[in-house]
Structure formats: C-alpha cells, structure tokens
C-alpha cells in the first residue's frame, strides 16, 4: 500500500508505520515481528494500522517514541518543528 493513499485522519498511524519501516531500514529494528513482540502488540493490529483501519494506541506510540528517541513532531506534523524521524540528527 502506498503511504500517500492513507486517510488524512489516520495520519498518526500512518506515520507510525512509516517510522517503523524507517527504523527497519536503519537497522534499528529487525522486523515487524520484533516491534510487535517488544510492545506486546498484535501483528494483526499492526496490519490494520498499515491499512488505516485502526489507530495506533497511545501507550504503544508513547513508548515507541521514547525507546528510539524519536521526534514527536514526525507523528504530529507541525508547521514550525522539524519533521525528521529522529529527535537528534546524529543518525544516518
């Protein structure tokens, strides 16, 4: 599924899936299974997030952001703050 076809109202879930993929690409995360296991998150829910059918729970997103030191603005796009995934720009 192309990210651009995601419904606007599920922007947070959209960004969550995108972030997970970016983390995998950066070898911060091995795969989707690792993410699901780490946050005790059902794989089917992850797939529903990917399809835009379900929102990511706040506790999962919260812990996810803290664990990987991510930039919250990436998930809540804003006009003034940076939309890069990582809070610190040292990665990559």
């Amino acid at each position, binding site marked *: 599924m192309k990210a651009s076809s995601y419904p606007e109202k599920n922007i947070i879930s959209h960004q969550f899936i995108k972030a997970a993929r970016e983390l995998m690409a950066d070898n911060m995360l091995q795969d989707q299974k690792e993410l699901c296991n780490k946050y005790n998150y059902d794989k089917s829910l992850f797939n529903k997030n990917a399809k835009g059918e379900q929102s990511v729970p*706040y506790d999962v997103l919260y812990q996810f952001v803290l664990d990987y030191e991510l930039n919250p603005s990436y998930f809540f796009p804003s006009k003034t703050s940076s939309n890069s995934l990582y*809070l610190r720009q040292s990665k990559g």
Partner: protein
Amino acid sequence: MTEEGKKKKSQKRELNAVDRRYLKAVDILIETNRAKSHSEICTSIGIDRSIISKMRSEGRSVTMQQLEATITTYGLSSEYFFYDKKSLFETESNSKSSGVLTNGDNNKVFNVERGNIEGNVLYEQIADQIINEAPPELHTKINTLVQETSKIKKIASDYKKEVSILKTEKREVEERLLKTNEDLHAVKDELLSIFRSK
C-alpha cells in the same frame, strides 16, 4: 449494587504520562488566555465538553486524535507531551504561516486554528484556505461559481415553494373528487331503488 461493584465503579484509572501532560497543557492554555475554559477547548477540538473533567475524575485517557487536534488547533509542540522539560508552545516566529503544511509524503496537512480534524468547522476553513491560496486567475471563476451556486439555491427554494403549493392544490382536488364520487354513488343507489320498486 454490591460493595465490590461500587468499589470497582469508584476506582479511578491512573493517568499515563501523556494524559497528565495533557491536563497540565489545558490548564496552561487557560492561564495564558489562549482558551477561556476546558469546555471551550473541548468544543474547539470537536469533542464532548465533559471529556477533560472525565479525565480528571475517572482517569479517562485522551486519544491520539484528540491530542493531535489540540496540538494543531492551539499550535502546541508535540514534544511537550512526550519528553520532559519541553516547551508547550511552538516558536512564535513561524506561527503565522499559511496553515497548510506537508507531511513526509508531501500530502497536505491542514492546520485548523479552530475546530479539528473531525469537526465540520474544518471543511469551511479548508475551503477558505484553498480559495485564498488559489491563483488569482481562478478567483473570478470561483466567484462565478459561488454566485451560480446561490442562484441555483434560490431557484431550488422557489421550486420547493411551488411544489408545496401544487401539493396543497392536489389534496383539495382529491377531496373534491372523493366528495363527487360519494354523491354519484348516492345517485346510483337512488336509481337502483327506483328501478327495483317498479
């Protein structure tokens, strides 16, 4: 209700870090006169007026959508809700941009000054925003469309009135027909009785 039931009902769920920061943020919004009351905040982001008080009394959690709506509506920094020692408000220097930004995929994300992603207010604002940002040559066309739309609305309203009048007339004609039909039946019965009596 059993004691256990009462206890269960009165038990308040413990708020998570995001909820606690959210409650603090709404208080700051009121203190800094960015909002008049909790109720106003709820209304402006399109949620039930009692949500914030329920968060305090019942330990109800804010949803990600509500959080996003609040952040967008009041121009808050999302970092505040996740990390310690972060400012609630975004820098003022950039806060007067067009209100349309893009996410990672260059999709437009509309910043709603009042109203939220689920609220109807958004659509009018988006419409205004699109019109304002449209190239000047389109403005004449948009104005023509707006005028045409209001003309069509006027015509539709006139037709509605006409239909209503015609319906009333139809009802009257039907009543008259019914009466005539009854009269004719009475005449028929009278004629039959005359024939039978002969």
